């Protein structure tokens, strides 16, 4: 059992800490390069491409952090024992949210300046038509900004509070702290569900202002959960390769995290299909417009490939427990699903530029992603510094270290 507070094996490697600042610099440079490449894709639509690409990449990181927050809250709600050793890393990932919120500022600035490159509804009612015009009471720059601030504040408060309480337990070992978080995590999940759903409506769905889908927030959330589990397992693998957490996280934890990831991946497909089928069946022009955008301008290839890459192939690949208990298999499918989530975010956002899909566009966007992920990773390192990677005085630690999955 891990009892020693200052044990180096439950801290991030020393060498990582010095890399955080260079990574932020690299990230900013990469985002700049991607902006420059978008100019080559289309000089006319460059602002459109840049803003959409920025949003897609920000959402890629944001959904991962949001997934981490949900994971932490759910562990407390269900009083789960197995996850006591892995929960801290999820706490750290989720505690990046207040910092990611800073990256949202450019988008809000664009809105205040009245630019319509990203959100077409940022115009007066007279300039819009159809449903978009009717929505101006809800979709306007000040109300949108206010809501964004509210969502980000809710999440920041939740993750900061849970993380601080959990850290306090590291010092005191009070069981009451666990009970207290358990008590409040139920209401916090309700707040979380509503705010995440509305945030998805505002930030991503309103890119096509005349379209609406009530399951959209759930869809984004499901994709984010998959990406979060993939990220967390890849991080654990990386840490163990650096000689950390070797006793705390074992094959049983990887098995369990893979199971939940597999389940959420099915849930993602379920939500995506539920959304698609109703619109497909009714076949009403104003409702199918969103899907039409995604089969035009060469985006159809991505849309169809996404079904196989995000669902069918990993569904078959992750089905067996032998894969889920095999480290190489787990790492492979985690990396695969992160790529799938990246494609999903591209699918969500980029077709709304109405710029034809091209290889250069994808490369430019990918470089932007590398930049954004590098900033995200730097935030993670900064947040993880001086924090034990295991909640080492959690009352359920013993259960987490000794349990095993039944043999089927």
């Amino acid at each position, binding site marked *: 059992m891990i009892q020693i507070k200052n044990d180096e094996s439950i801290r991030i490697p020393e060498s990582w800490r010095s890399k955080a600042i260079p990574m932020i610099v690299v990230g900013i440079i990469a985002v700049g390069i991607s902006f420059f490449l978008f100019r080559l894709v289309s000089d006319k639509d460059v602002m459109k491409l840049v803003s959409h690409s920025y949003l897609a990449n920000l959402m890629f990181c944001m959904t991962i952090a949001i997934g981490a927050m949900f994971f932490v809250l759910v562990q407390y709600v269900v009083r789960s024992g197995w996850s006591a050793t892995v929960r801290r890393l999820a706490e750290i990932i989720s505690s990046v949210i207040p910092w990611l919120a800073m990256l949202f500022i450019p988008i809000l600035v664009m809105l205040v300046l009245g630019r319509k490159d990203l959100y077409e509804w940022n115009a007066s009612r007279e300039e819009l038509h159809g449903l978009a015009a009717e929505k101006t009471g809800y979709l306007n720059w000040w109300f949108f900004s206010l809501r964004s601030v509210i969502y980000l504040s809710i999440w920041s408060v939740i993750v900061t509070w849970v993380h601080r309480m959990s850290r306090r337990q590291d010092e005191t070992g009070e069981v009451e702290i666990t009970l207290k978080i358990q008590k409040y995590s139920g209401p916090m999940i309700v707040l979380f569900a509503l705010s995440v759903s509305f945030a998805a409506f505002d930030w991503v769905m309103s890119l096509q202002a005349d379209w609406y889908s009530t399951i959209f927030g759930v869809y984004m959330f499901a994709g984010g959960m998959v990406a979060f589990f993939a990220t967390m397992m890849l991080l654990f693998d990386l840490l163990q390769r650096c000689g950390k957490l070797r006793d705390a996280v074992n094959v049983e934890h990887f098995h369990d995290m893979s199971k939940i990831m597999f389940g959420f991946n099915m849930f993602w497909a379920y939500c995506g*299909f539920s959304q*698609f*089928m109703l619109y*497909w*069946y009714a*076949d009403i022009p104003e409702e199918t417009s969103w899907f039409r955008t995604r089969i035009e301008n060469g985006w159809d290839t991505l849309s169809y490939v996404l079904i196989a890459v995000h669902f069918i192939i990993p569904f078959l690949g992750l*089905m*067996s*427990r032998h894969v889920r208990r095999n480290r190489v298999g787990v790492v492979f499918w985690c990396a695969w699903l992160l790529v799938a989530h990246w494609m999903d975010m591209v699918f969500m956002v980029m077709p709304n530029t109405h710029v034809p899909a091209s290889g250069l566009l994808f490369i430019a966007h990918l470089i932007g992603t590398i930049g954004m992920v590098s900033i995200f990773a730097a935030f993670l390192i900064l947040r993880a510094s001086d924090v034990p990677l295991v909640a080492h005085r959690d009352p359920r630690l013993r259960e987490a270290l000794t*349990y*095993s*999955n*039944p*043999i*089927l």
Partner: protein
Amino acid sequence: MSEHHEKKDRSRPPQSQGWIAEYVDEHGLLEAARKVREAGYTKTDAFTPYPVHGIDHALGIRPTVLPFIVLVGGFTGLGTALLMQYWMNAVDYPYLISGKPLGSWPAFIPVTFELTVLFSAITTFLGSILLNRLPKYSNPVFTSPRFDRATDDRFFLYVDSSDRYFNKNSVQNLLSSTNPESLEEVMEDASSTVIPRAVWLSVLLLLVIASIPMAIILKMRNSNSPSPRWHVFFDMDFQPKKKPQQISTLFADGRAMRSPVLGTVARGQWEGNDAFYLGYDPAKLAAHAGRDRSRFVGASLAAAMQDPVGAPALGQPPTPDEEKSPESAIPAGSNVPAKSETSDEMDESSNAAEKPSDEPSPGDEATDGKVMVEETQTANDAASPSSGEPANPSQDGAALASAVPTLPFVTNIPMEIDAQVMELGKKKFEIYCSVCHGVGGDGDGLVARRAEEIAQSYWLPPTSLHADAVRSQPVGQVFYTISNGKGKMAGYGAVLTPKERWAVVLYVKALQRSRNASESDVPLEMQSKLSQSK
């Protein structure tokens, strides 16, 4: 323990079946199970009040093949669902739904998902029953009274005597070294394996009782009875309403049927008695003299009732002396077919109306009888309205239908006409008429095209409104057809007001003219546009 075994050795004392150790918690059980496995025993089993993590590993239970069986079951369900739906929707009963392809994969997915889950679940259920060799009615461990607590708060470890390395003393020593709460030898169940007669009888009784409803249903479905049927489900068989000719207690006169309130007209009933409502001139009809007068009055009444179904029924059936035998009714060289297809007759009669009708010849008498009254006053006496019909009493509906074209239809629309009326007519035509007749009136509406595609044998194609027979009809006749229907076409008198019907007539006439228009028909201010587009 088989019955065979039991019968054979009833006299001998019960044999030892193995040893069972009792523990107060799962840790003791897990520890003991590990020891027993390490000692090499494989015929072991554990009994716990709830699933214990790690017990499979401690006992050395190997992974089961069930997941692979379930995988096969799931894929079978997936394939079954897809093939079934494709066969049903695209092969056996192809039916176009909102213009989607017959084999629409997105629509198949929910059922595919359900069947995959269902097949997987059934395979899991049956597979686990088979792999566990269930049902097992008895187990020797049940003989121990302490074992009852296995479903409550105690944990048991059992070593069977059929194990390869089983040795009574060494097993006993091994188990007692694990600090069990108790340790006992499990003896063979000495009680009889014969199922008690009471059980047999109750099962039999239950079967008999269970078959009673089925027997009653079978009898009911295969026999006749003069008494009213049992109403297991009432559906809508009994309703608090009065049927015609029943007695009402609500009204003083005791009549359930009420006559209309004085000064009112029911919907679909008489609307008016002039050309605007009828499509023909009732005064002309009344003034007309001749043998057919009574018939015309009958047809007039029918039209006045505005009831497309009732219309033929109110017509006077032809008297036998007016009828001719079918052979003599069709003169040689007549173009009237000897069949009762109503729509064909209509077309034929319209053809006849095109001919110069002031010179009726004896050979044309069959067709002349249907020529419009206002054009062929002289022909009326010579022609019998039913002379073109087969003299089959069962087809008198068809015979009566021949009264229709003899009405004095009006040739001018009896209302003010302007562009708004034309717009109204276009709108109503596209709503009600175009589904069969087509937007252009060519008889190629969506319904017609679909019927043609699936080649239904009973389908009668809708008439093209540009056929000569239709083009030559006076506006009153088109109005009459719209109001009362014709052939398979239903009447639209109930859904369109007279004004709307005339508007549709106007639009139909405009459609017809559009195919035969000359440049001079185009208004002057539009002619420049026309020449530009040329």
